[in-house]
């Protein structure tokens, strides 16, 4: 349908105004508040010992979460895309479950399961292995919320590609590992990378669940998001804005990566 010039004008500017007021103006305001005292103040604020520890912790969590999600996610995606079995729709639903769970509920669930008074509390009480108030708690919370990403990005790619190439390789005598490494993995590389990028972004940005399972001690168990919250509640507003800007830059990098990968995926599909 072709809109009259007036209708086109109205729809365009109403939509733009909405996006401007809702997203662009507030984000711009944060950037303004961060850089008005100068770039030096920004760098000083994001390089305090507590900030560096927070960055190290966040990156450590990412370094654990991503390989686990890839190692378990790719086979799960293979399963869902290629095989038929009883209970497949249940598995599909479980993979999507984390999207419907509030971060606070994730925290509560982990506390009720792994806490010292929890169902599996013997792990902490008898083996001295702290999950809640320790690194494993933060890792488990991050994996919970990122489970769907790799699986959901790789599965449709596998589905579309079909098994022709793999079967051809098998008839030529390749072992299953060679087939996987040389044929399957390269064919899903853009979908996989996209899923990894989403996983990294979500892990760095997780707040509600981590707030509940971490002991929130500066320099030891504060992630970047926890430090932002800590700075704000202490009244160190500029510090909160500066760290938020850093996280926003990471988010922008993620968006850029997404755009690049989209176009690569499109090109790969055409090949």
């Amino acid at each position: 349908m072709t809109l009259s010039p007036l209708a086109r004008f109205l729809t365009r500017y109403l939509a733009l105004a909405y996006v401007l007021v809702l997203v662009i103006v507030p984000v711009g305001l944060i950037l303004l508040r961060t850089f008005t005292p100068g770039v030096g103040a920004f760098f000083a604020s994001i390089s305090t010992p507590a900030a560096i520890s927070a960055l190290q912790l966040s990156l450590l969590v990412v370094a654990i979460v991503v390989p686990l999600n890839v190692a378990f996610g790719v086979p799960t995606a293979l399963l869902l895309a290629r095989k038929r079995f009883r209970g497949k729709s249940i598995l599909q639903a479980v993979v999507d479950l984390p999207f419907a769970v509030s971060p606070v509920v994730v925290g509560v669930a982990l506390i009720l399961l792994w806490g010292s008074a929890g169902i599996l509390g013997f792990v902490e009480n008898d083996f001295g292995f702290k999950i809640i108030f320790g690194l494993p708690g933060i890792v488990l919370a991050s994996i919970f919320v990122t489970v769907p990403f790799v699986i959901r990005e790789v599965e449709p790619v596998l589905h579309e590609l079909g098994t022709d190439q793999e079967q051809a390789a098998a008839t030529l005598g390749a072992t299953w590992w060679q087939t996987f490494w040389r044929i399957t993995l390269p064919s899903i590389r853009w979908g996989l990378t996209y899923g990894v990028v989403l996983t990294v972004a979500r892990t760095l940005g997780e707040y509600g669940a981590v707030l509940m399972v971490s002991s929130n001690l500066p320099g030891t168990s504060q992630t970047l998001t926890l430090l932002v919250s800590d700075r704000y509640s202490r009244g160190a507003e500029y510090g909160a804005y500066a760290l938020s800007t850093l996280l926003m830059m990471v988010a922008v990098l993620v968006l850029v990566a997404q755009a690049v990968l989209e176009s690569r995926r499109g090109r790969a599909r055409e090949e």
Partner: protein
Amino acid sequence: MTAAADTDIRAVASVRRAGSTPALVGAASIWLSVIVLLPLAAIVVQSGKGGWSAFRTAVTSGAALESFRVTLLAAVGVTVVNAFFGLLVAWVLTRDQFVGKRVIDAVIDLPFALPTIVASLVMLALYGPGSPVKLHLQHTKWGIGVALLFVTLPFVVRTVQPVLLELDRETEEAAASLGATNSVIFTRVVLPALLPALLTGAGLAFSRAIGEFGSVVLIGGAIPGETEVSSQWIRTLIENDDRTGAAAISIVLLAVSFVVLFVLRVVGSRAAKREEQQE
């Protein structure tokens, strides 16, 4: 047996060995169980401790009911607003051409990629005490509304956009050539085709809104009956060591989320089937 048949059998066998279904199912199930199902099961178990009466007390307490009211009101309001504006934005991004369209398209995903606590600060910068436009929405329902609008915007836009792109313009052009006005074309041709995606996006937005914590925690102020959402009440309960209460309220939130997503999926697939039948 011929040599070729031998190779074929070996090939099929090696492929089967490679991705042997039971092993994969087992591995995937264990992974998903430990990470996703077990923690959720712990909530179910805890909410049952103390029996039905304890569950009912926790779920019908004054603070719980107030928090449900605030949460649902905010979530429904925000879903409706973003369903409208999300559709509008998706329309403009697919059907219109203007300078900077690519930038706007990229910006839409920003709320999705941003940490929720940063979103809260972002909202507070514009609507909090230091607001440059003197809009003080902190501690009000409007403040919560604006924060939720921010984080749920991408859901509707991103589910409707691909469908809008793939839409077959022929039906629209046919209707136009038969003399139908734009509003008729939109309501009779375009909207029904978009309905499944719109409902999916709305469902995702609603689901996100009722569970949202990080982005409302700073701008809301947790005023009972005014701005305290259920996720904040759950957090208060678990910190006060009322584990059964926290588990009970969590179950309610999860149930609402699942029911809404399920209903919308059913309605959406029925609408999609109707569309297919009409073609």
